[in-house]
């Protein structure tokens, strides 16, 4: 059990712990949910958790490259969300369902 000092002195470790917890939530959503769009949301959650750890590291080390990485991750996440949603809309138009199970029919 960490001491009161460690608990109250908020630093890098605390932010990393929070980031890890949120990341695991995103991972659980991707692994266990059946709705494709909720899975995409899980991916967004994971990316955001990583962003949080980047910013915490940037603050701790005084190096702004962490901010740049967050900037890039955000851009890529926006692109990923656009493509993912377009694919989901295409699937929905075909099957009227966004359950991941229906993606099996896409073979061949």
């Amino acid at each position, binding site marked *: 059990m960490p001491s009161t000092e460690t608990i109250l002195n908020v630093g890098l*470790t605390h*932010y990393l712990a929070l980031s890890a917890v949120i990341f695991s939530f995103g991972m*659980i959503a991707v692994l266990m949910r059946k709705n494709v769009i*909720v899975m995409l949301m899980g991916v967004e959650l994971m990316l*955001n958790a990583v962003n949080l750890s980047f910013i915490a*590291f940037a*603050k701790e080390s005084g190096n702004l490259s962490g*901010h*740049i990485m967050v900037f890039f991750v955000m851009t890529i996440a926006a*692109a990923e969300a656009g493509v993912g949603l377009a694919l989901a809309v295409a699937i929905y138009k075909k099957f009227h369902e966004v359950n991941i199970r229906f993606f099996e029919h896409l073979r061949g």
Partner: protein
Amino acid sequence: MLWDAIGFYGMALFLIFFALKTITVPNPIHAALYLVLTMIGLAGMFFNLGAHFIAGVQMIVYAGAVMVLFVMVLMLFDLKAEIRSFSRGLLSGALKIMSSALLVGFALGSAGSSVAILDSSDTAPTQIDVTRQLGVLLYTKYLFAFEVLGILLLVVAVGVVAVSRMKGGTHAQH
């Protein structure tokens, strides 16, 4: 220091609660709305960490654009709340949760043991004009990556238009 701790734990509880709600509520629209709250909370966290510009971008890009897109698409789909929103299989489910927990455990352990390596005392960032430094860094050291991202976005835009106008168009008969 006490106020810092209270602020951090308050925000962290807020974030964890909404992130948990995001992945557990059966109705996907509610999940999206909880995710919006998570994003706003993260923007507050970034602000707290001195990344003011990144916090603003988080609000504009994530909360203001990406999540609006999510909510809009979900509304177009007219989905009802799912009765079984999680995938089947007790054993596989347990394995999935355990693997996630293992990952968190590794992350926490490594974070706790590696913090001492980071020298934090004498390289504390000067909080003056972080935004300006960020811009200079983006257009000098990371210029190539920035340009590549621009091309990526263009390709993605074309690709999304192509996917959504696949043969049959919007009113395809199936």
